[in-house]
Structure formats: C-alpha cells, structure tokens
C-alpha cells in the first residue's frame, strides 16, 4: 500500500453496499431524535442528522449550540440519552472511542488528543501501535508516518516532540492522526482555527480527495468563506435544537447568521460610538519568557474598543494576560495610565484600575461552590466599602453586589446561589460584576462570549458599549472574527507571536484580517529561500 488515499479507496470499495436498503446506503450516518442531558443543560434536544457518502456536511452554530456534543456522540465519547444512530446500515449502540475508530470514524477535535511529551510519529500511532509480541516496530511505524505526512503535504518533522510544536503544527498532527487509519467518516472541528491560508488550502485539497473516495465529512466552522468553498449541506444548531438543514448553495451569509442567532445581524452587534481620548494602557516591545509573544507593542485608549484578532494560539490572549502578571515577561514594558509597572501582578493591576476577564471562567474565573456574592466581591475585599481592618462588612457587601447584579440583569437575581448552578451567560455576568466592584477603567476581555447564549452575548456587548460611553478603555481579544470586526474601533492582528497589522476604519473587514495571516506566510517562505 503506497499512500493513504489508496487505502481509503480500498475501504470504500470493500464497504458492504449489498444490504438491499438502497436509500439508506447513500447515507453513511443517520441519527434520529438524539437527546443528551448534562447537569443543568439539555445539550441536544431531539436532533436529527444525516451524512451522505462523499459529502461535506457543515455543522453551524454558536458556541454552546450543541455542535461539539453532537460530534462527541458520533465519535463515541458520549452516549446519547435518547435516539438512534445508524452507521453504514447498522444500528449503533454502546459506541466507545475505540470502537468508533475501528469502524472508520475519525474525529479531529479542537482540544487535541495528543500526548505532549511523545513525538509526532508516536502520537500518530497512539492506540494502534504496530507491534510484535508487545515490542514496538519503530522502523515500520516511522516509514508509515513519513508516508502519511508526505501525502498530506504538511511541513512536519515526525521526530519532534508535540510539546515543542506550535498550535498550527499540533493541528496538523491531529489531522494526520485521523487519516492514518481507514477513514469512512471524518469529523473536523474548526480545523482551520489555527492554520494559515496556505495550510488551509492544502487541507481543502485533501478534503476534495477524500470526498472523491466516498468519505463522509462533518465539518464544524464559523468562517463563511470556508462554508461556501467546501460545504455541500449545512445543518444549523441553536440551543441544542436543529434549526434547519439546507444546501450550501441556497443560503446567503446573512441568512445563516440569522438562523444561527435567531436575530438580525444588526441587532446582534450594537452600534458603538467610539470617542478615543488618552492612552490608558500601553504595552511596549513585550516579549514573554516562552516567546509566545514576541516584541509586540500596542496601546488602548479611553473611549474605544481595541480589538485583537488572530488564529487560535497566536499569542493574543497571552499578551493581555501579561498585563495582569499571569505570564512571565522576558522584556518590554507595561504602562498603565502613564505609570510603568515593573513587575505586573493582578492586585497591582486591579489597584491601577485594570481588570482581566479570563476566557476559561471555570479554571481561572470562578469558585463554583461559592455563592455569586462572594465571587463578585472577591477582587474588592480590600476596599473600604467591603471591609474595615480586615473585617468584612457583609451587609454593605450584599447591598453593593445586589446593585451590580441587578444592573447586569442576572436572572434569577438571588446572589446567594452557588455559581456552579449558573449557565455560561450568567457566569460571565458574575465575572463582569467582579470588574464593576472597583473603579475599573481598563477592561481586558479574553474571549468574552465563549460558551454563552445569544441573549447573554447581546447583553455583554451592550455592557461594553455602556462602559466605552463612560470613558473606559476596552481591549477585546477574540477568535470569533465577526465579534472583533463589528465591535472594534481599532483592530490589531497577531500571527505566530508577532503583531502583523493595525487596522482602523474601513480597513477592518474579514478579507483584510485573513490576508494578514497569508502575507506573513509568504514573507516567511520568501525569507527562507
């Protein structure tokens, strides 16, 4: 067997199509009435989904709409509470990740299933090593790994450790891993989120070849251009329910966004009146110890939203985290309101009026077992409003936090409930409440709308508008392009640890941002020659 595409072809040819069910056999996967309940959320609610051989079926929806739950059900990670799954003409139940892989279902998740301290080729073969009597046949595996990487046209060194690779390269390893075995159903969950245009192009070529070989592909993406380019059909999910399945050729961009959000696009993003005045935050020539941010300078002015766009893993989030002292700085300076902060720490930044809102609210934001009140006041207990001589003023605390929570329209407004019982949107509001307990005028938002529903999203945007109107400086870091495109007055673009562009006014559009990644790629390959 010379290349993977041969193998794929073999598989498809040998697949059983003599079952007599002519209509069913055109679909490799049929799901009927799938429901999945998680504590507190109904992640999937009676969803139907089918996938034909040789088609690219796009899953479209906001974060938290149920896309990842659905693909996890298909990949065998979760079993559905209700509903039936037919794969290749057979009923599936008790699917495990291992069985799914054996049957030719290959998922490429956004959270990588890679082992950081193993090499690329060791990761490719994880779980299906070629061995003889328990001993690894390393030579055979090396040769096969090299073959697959060559076939994919990825620039990967099979002997390198995964932990030393950039996110884009890890993404390539993940894709190569999925294509190592016989694939009949490929799941790609935002595979291009960290790839450059060039790499994306190679991936699409590959998808074309797989389609021709009859592989069914489920493709999760937010990017309109990709959806138009490779999608055959689109299924839109919202709040765990299937809204519609349509042909990609038949729907327009705005129509899709409306289906996804249930609102008109101009209602989703508020019109913000930016009136930039003085610089409140300056980051000059910042380089982090791990070089995830390399020589970046930006500033944020009062009265405007400064966006930072970039692929996943480009260092944009680390940049603002450094202001808060959460990353080790190698060199560069951070200036808040004209005062240089030599050794940034969260408490220093808070006192200076800068507050950071982490993207991972569970890991870095909230104490889930504790009530809303304690979570909201956590960063302000040193203020005279909340304590006197280290003794808490609980009555005052309750009054102040209740006021803020009402202002943020947190529902239900009972501030004694544990945060763990709240939905994503409400959790984000508790985080925001924490920022509002102090005199804060520099807001550092890191992916503020990840995992929250549309209603809460609009409220977060409205709050940003209100804050900017009152003269706050907002830095908005987001991987969701529409968000930064619509909300920013000035937009920085980061790529591979570097700042590659600063866009203002009409320059802020999807084409301009995406081409920043491309230019850099070209420049690099030119420099390399």
């Amino acid at each position: 067997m010379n290349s993977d595409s041969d193998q794929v072809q073999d598989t498809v040819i040998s697949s059983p199509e003599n079952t007599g069910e002519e209509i069913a056999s055109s679909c490799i996967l049929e799901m009927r009435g799938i429901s999945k309940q998680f504590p507190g959320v109904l992640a999937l609610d009676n969803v139907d989904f089918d996938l034909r051989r040789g088609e690219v079926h796009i899953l479209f929806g906001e974060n938290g709409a149920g896309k990842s739950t659905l693909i996890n059900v298909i990949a065998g990670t979760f079993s559905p509470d209700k509903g039936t799954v037919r794969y290749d003409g057979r009923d599936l139940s008790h699917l495990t990740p291992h069985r799914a892989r054996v049957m030719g279902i290959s998922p490429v998740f956004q959270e990588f299933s890679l082992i950081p301290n193993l090499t690329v080729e060791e990761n490719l073969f994880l779980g299906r090593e070629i061995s003889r009597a328990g001993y690894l046949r390393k030579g055979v595996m090396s040769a096969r790994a090299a073959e697959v990487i060559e076939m994919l046209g990825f620039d990967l060194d099979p002997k390198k450790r995964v932990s030393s690779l950039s996110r884009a390269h890890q993404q390539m390893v993940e894709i190569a891993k999925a294509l190592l075995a016989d694939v009949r159903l490929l799941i790609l969950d935002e595979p291009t989120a960290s790839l450059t245009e060039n790499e994306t192009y190679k991936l699409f070529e590959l998808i074309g070849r797989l389609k021709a070989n009859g592989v069914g592909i489920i493709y999760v993406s937010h990017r309109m251009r990709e959806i138009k380019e490779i999608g055959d059909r689109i299924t839109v999910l919202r709040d765990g329910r299937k809204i519609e399945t349509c042909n990609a050729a038949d729907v327009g961009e705005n129509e899709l966004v409306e289906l996804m959000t249930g609102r008109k696009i101009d209602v989703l993003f508020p019109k913000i009146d930016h009136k930039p005045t003085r610089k409140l935050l300056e980051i000059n020539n910042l380089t982090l110890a791990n070089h995830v941010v390399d020589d970046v300078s930006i500033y944020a002015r009062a009265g405007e939203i400064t966006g930072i766009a970039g692929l996943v893993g480009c260092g944009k989030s680390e940049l603002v985290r450094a202001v808060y002292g959460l990353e080790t700085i190698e060199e560069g300076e951070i200036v808040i309101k004209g005062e240089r902060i030599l050794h940034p720490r969260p408490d220093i930044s808070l006192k200076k009026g800068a507050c950071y809102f982490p993207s991972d609210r569970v890991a870095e934001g909230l104490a889930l077992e504790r009530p809303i009140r304690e979570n909201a006041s956590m960063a302000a207990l040193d203020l005279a409003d909340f304590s006197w001589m280290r003794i808490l003023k609980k009555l005052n605390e309750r009054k102040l936090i209740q006021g803020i929570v009402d202002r943020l329209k947190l529902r239900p407004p009972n501030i004694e409930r544990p945060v763990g019982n709240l939905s994503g949107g409400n959790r984000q509001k508790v985080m925001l409440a924490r920022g509002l307990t102090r005199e804060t005028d520099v807001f550092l938002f890191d992916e503020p709308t990840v995992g929250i529903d549309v209603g809460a999203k609009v409220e977060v945007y409205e709050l940003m508008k209100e804050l900017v109107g009152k003269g706050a400086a907002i830095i908005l870091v987001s991987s969701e392009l529409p968000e930064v495109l619509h909300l920013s007055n000035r937009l920085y673009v980061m790529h591979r640890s570097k700042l590659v562009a600063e866009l203002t006014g009409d320059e802020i559009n999807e084409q301009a941002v995406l081409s920043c990644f491309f230019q850099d790629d070209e420049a690099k390959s030119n420099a390399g020659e």
Partner: protein
Amino acid sequence: MVNNNLASGHLHQKEVNQLVRAISAMGLLPIMLVVLIAALSIFEPRFLGIFNILNVLRETSFLAILAAGQMLVLIVGGFDLSVGAVVALSSTVTATVMANLLGIMPDDVGLVIFAGVAAGIGCGVAVGLVNGLCVAFLRVSPFMVTLGTLSITAGIALLLTNGIPVYGMPKVFVKSFGRALWLGLPTTVYVALALVIMVWVIQRYTVLGRYIYAIGGNLQASLVSGVSTKTYLVMAYTMCGALAAITGVLLTARVGSGQATLGGNIVMLQSIAAAVIAGVSLRGGIGRVELVTLGALFLSIVTNGMNLVRIDSKIQTIVLGIIVIIAVALEEYGNRRKIRE
C-alpha cells in the same frame, strides 16, 4: 526566529535565560553528580575506600529498584506512598515463610527460598494491585489510596511479627546471596542492573511503556485514542509494588532477618526524591529509568558523604527534604520557560 532581538539590550538577562534553558534541557543531575564525587574524593579520603564504594553501590541498588517503580507510577501521573511499607511487609513475609518452611522441610533449601521470595514479591504485587484498582476504578486520588495502603501494609507487617525481627532463614540465602560478592561486586548490584535494564526495555521498546507515557501525558487523549487506560494504570502500580517488594527481599537477605522496621517513610521519600532529581515530572508523562538510576546514585552518595563526615541522621532527613523541594522547584521553573517554535 527566537534569537532575532538578541542584539538589543538586556544581554545579561538573555544569557541567564539561555543558561537556564540549556541546563533544563540536559538536566542538572550529571553536573551535580560529578561535582559531588569530586568534592568528596578531595575532602574525604575514606570515600574512595573499596569498602565504602561497595557500600555506596549496594545502597544505590536498593534505591534504584525502588525508585524505578516509583518512577513508573509518577509517569502515569500518580505517586505511591506505600513503597516503604511494602518493603517492610515483603521483608517480614519472606523471612516468616522461609523460617516456617525450613522447619518443615529442612532439606529442600531451594524450594524454601523460592517460596519465601515468591511470597514476599506476591505481597508487593497485591498491594500494588489494590493501589492501581482503587486509582483506576474507584477514582480515588493516588495520594489518599496509597496513604491508606501505607497504613494497612505497615500495620500487617507489625502484626505478623509483633515488631520482633524474624530469624531462621536458610543460611545460603543470607551468606551466599545477601551478603556475597560476585566478581567483586555485591549481588544486589546485578539484580538492580537486570531490573533497571528490564524497565529500560519496557520504556523504550514496548507498547506497555508507550502507553504508560501516554496516560501520564494526557489521560483523556489516551482514552480517546483507544488506549485501555485503566489496565495500564493498574499495571504501573502493580509493577511499582513488585519492585518495592523485590527491594524488601534483597534487604532481608542482606540484613539476615525479616524486620517490620526496614523501609519506612524515609525510603519512600528517597524513592520520590531520586525520581524527581532525575527529571521525572510530578505532572506525569516524563521520566527515564537510566536517569533515575543516576538520581539514586546521587542520593546514596549524599547520604554516604553525610555519614562519613558524621552528620546526625536527624539532620540528614532535613537535608533530604530540602533536596526534594529544590528539585521540584527547578522543574517548575524550567517548565515556565520552555519555548515553543
């Protein structure tokens, strides 16, 4: 790309960073080992005495076996507090079985020794199995599980013997094995070497070794990749228990009696220290047995050196504690400064 702005100022800071990275890549251990041996050779003439060297090698062997087991458990992202107690239990069980069987069949010395050793190692396997099953299936934290089995195991060892040493093992076992020299080296050195090579082969060349790394590196990813994670977790703990029990058997042969006071918590801490000094990550996924053996050598020489210059054993435990903490802190520091391309 990384070195682009080397030319611009702050050279000092950069050099320090580069040095830190170079050292964390290679490991401090070989350097420290050379410095330590050189210093002791110069300042303490007794260190290079043949008797002392044999002593150091013997101690290293015991510790290396124990630490190799501990390393396997650390790599899967756990740790094993019960190894010291397993040493004590296997010692008392080995001695008790041998002494009793020798009374029944005084002529079958070979069989008596075999049964004793098997019983001793069996105890370790059993404790390891319990540890592994609890961690893998009951999902109890390794800390609590092994703390519990430590208490249970140590209790059984004391109960078996009432704290009194058990004598009456076959003389051959002690004289021709435990205290013997083969080709001028203590027998334990050969056993340790064989076991270390075995673990090395497992780590480098077998599916088992690969999965142990994978599970510690990312449990969820291994599961999703179709690795039967529970099986391999149990195997890692079981191997650790078995290796600890073998250490117990070797110590018993050396001492000449089964004692519930062999092993203990100092030994457990030493096994973790030897592994951590050798760069085994407490987060799992990283660790090589050849380096752990060097770690064991390092610790044994430190202990030996302190004995030679008559440092109080109470102070020695303080030093051990400090070494462990420094080693872990260095690992963390190195982690934070790792560069991605």
